[in-house]
């Protein structure tokens, strides 16, 4: 019931969309494709959903070949495309009913699967889908994708443009679905969501940078990272960028993540440099890399 891709290539005219994509998603796994817009995430989803033919390579979904068995795949996967793809002029209930009907089932038959998602939007069941807020649209789209009890779920950027609260709720729902044995492939441009997946693939410009558990990916980060802070953020970044020993400097929340070129690095030296550049209230403390650090480091190469 897993997913498997090997050496998938796809180009549109002359533009390469994805190149040499190979990864496996184990049955029952929550697997994340993490990368910015234009990285090729949507292309991968469309190939797996049998909507696009790859130029090269092989792929299977739940043991079915994406080219030969496309009809069988279409019956057994749930697919939620990147943009909101429901009928805006139909009500919440009509949308759900429609998708149940075309999959040859009824809402009642599979209600237990969507119950805890649908209950949140049920008070608005007579409202037109176009009039829902972003978070509610997401929940409705997920309900529609689940209505036929798919074994595999494809979610293409389900949380893009959604506020942090709704995003958190959405991920809690995914975790519950995973417990019911559904294999989930999800993509997101928000790197902080990577930690919620079992395993992730970091992807940029059509190529996979790394595949592993989120923890393993940050553990692989080759340098010591320091949280640096001062009274003037802009000046701090500029001063650090001019520093001869700087390897990388990136703002991270209230801090700047700093890595040094040298193997042995003394914080006092940096402290001194920053003070002499006219910065005050300086703090320098070691910290852990997060997914974004890892992504930026991998993307550099």
């Amino acid at each position: 019931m897993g997913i498997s891709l090997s050496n998938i290539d796809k180009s549109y005219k002359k533009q390469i969309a994805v190149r040499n994509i190979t990864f496996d998603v184990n049955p029952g796994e929550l697997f994340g494709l993490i990368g910015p817009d234009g990285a090729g995430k949507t292309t991968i989803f469309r190939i797996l959903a049998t909507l696009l033919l790859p130029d090269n390579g092989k792929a299977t979904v739940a043991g079915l070949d994406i080219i030969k068995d496309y009809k069988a795949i279409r019956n057994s996967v749930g697919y939620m495309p990147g943009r909101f793809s429901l009928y805006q002029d139909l009500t919440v209930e009509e949308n759900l009913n429609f998708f149940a009907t075309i999959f040859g089932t009824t809402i009642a038959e599979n209600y237990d699967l969507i119950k805890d998602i649908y209950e949140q939007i049920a008070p608005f069941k007579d409202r037109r889908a176009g009039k829902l807020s972003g978070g509610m649209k997401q929940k409705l789209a997920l309900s529609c994708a689940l209505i036929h009890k798919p074994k595999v779920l494809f979610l293409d950027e389900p949380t893009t443009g959604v506020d942090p609260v709704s995003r958190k709720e959405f991920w809690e729902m995914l975790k519950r679905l995973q417990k019911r044995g559904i294999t989930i492939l999800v993509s997101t441009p928000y790197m902080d969501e990577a930690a919620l997946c079992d395993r992730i693939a970091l992807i940029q410009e059509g190529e996979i940078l790394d595949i592993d558990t989120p923890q393993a990916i940050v553990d692989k980060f080759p340098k010591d990272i320091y949280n640096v802070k001062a009274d003037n953020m802009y000046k701090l970044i500029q001063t650090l960028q001019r520093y001869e020993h700087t390897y990388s400097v990136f703002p991270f929340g209230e801090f700047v993540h700093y890595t040094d070129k040298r193997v042995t690095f003394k914080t006092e030296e940096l402290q001194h440099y920053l003070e002499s550049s006219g910065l005050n209230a300086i703090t320098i403390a070691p910290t852990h890399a997060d997914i974004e650090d890892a992504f930026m480091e991998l993307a550099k190469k």
Partner: protein
Amino acid sequence: MKRFIGFIRKEFYHIFRDRRSLFILFGMPIAQILLFGFAITNEINNVNIAIQDHSKDASTLEIINKISNSKYFSIKQIISREAEIESIFQKGKIKAVLNFEKDFGRNLIKEKSAKIQIITDATDPNTANSITNYINAILQNYQLEKNKSIQIDYQIIPQTRMVYNQELKSVFMFVPGVMTIILMLVSAMMTSISITREKELGTMEILLVSPLKPFQVIIGKVVPYIFLSIINAAVIVLLSIFIFKMPVEGSLFLLGAESVLFIITSLALGILISTISDTQQSAMMISLMGLMLPVILLSGFIFPISSMPAPLQVISNIIPAKWFIIIIKGIMLKGVGLAFVWKETLILIGMTVFFIAVSVKKYKIRLE
């Protein structure tokens, strides 16, 4: 089957929720029929003309009286100088000037010929032509009357009768044309737009990744519009019968059946358009430009095909509307049966099959 019915139900939701399109859908045929029936006409009535009479004798007076007594013309002005003609036409009220030469009556008797000049405003050539013909007819008539007393060796008296449309009502010509345009637009444009809308919204992606078969999606899109188009066709026929007293000489059943055939031809065209366009906008452009214009210009609806240059006559053969117009004119005005329009009917059927075959071949089960 349940899936299919669910799909059709959804299509009706779309149609009935979009009030504006629905209004256009049913308002347009009525507006067009009334417009063509009342406002646009080739007939001449009460055209304003001016007279310049250099002779002012008994015969010119007789002719002028004859003209002004006819319902076609009303004499608005008598002018005395040539120079006035130009300024009269520029004002635009007067469409023609009759200019009798000096000594018109004397010449007529003595020389056996007299000259009368007809000057028309040809900015609208059709009207100018008709005016000239009507005036000529009146002059001819006058001559015949005058010559009655005189015995000549022989004389040809033409007797004309306009069959199938005795009163030369132009609405009889327009009804079949308007009906054709409306059916074509509703069927082809609306289906192509409703299919491309799903592509644009991204819902087509979900439909493709569902157990619905492509042909179910297409037929599901088409069925509601067959109903709407049949209602439209009925409204047009009823309007033309009860408001314009248009006859339906032939069988109403045959008329209905042929209309359904043409609706299906148009729907097939609409599906074909939707397979080659990705946006609602381009579907609409192709429908309007690719269907409306040829129907108006080349189907024989307004401009007779027989007077077109040869290449256009050939092209007109591939326009489904041409054949449908021939069929319904035959049924409504001439009262002919299938025996006389079977050829045209077969052509329409052939076209429909061709469009459907191409659409099925071009329909994508994937996104590219």
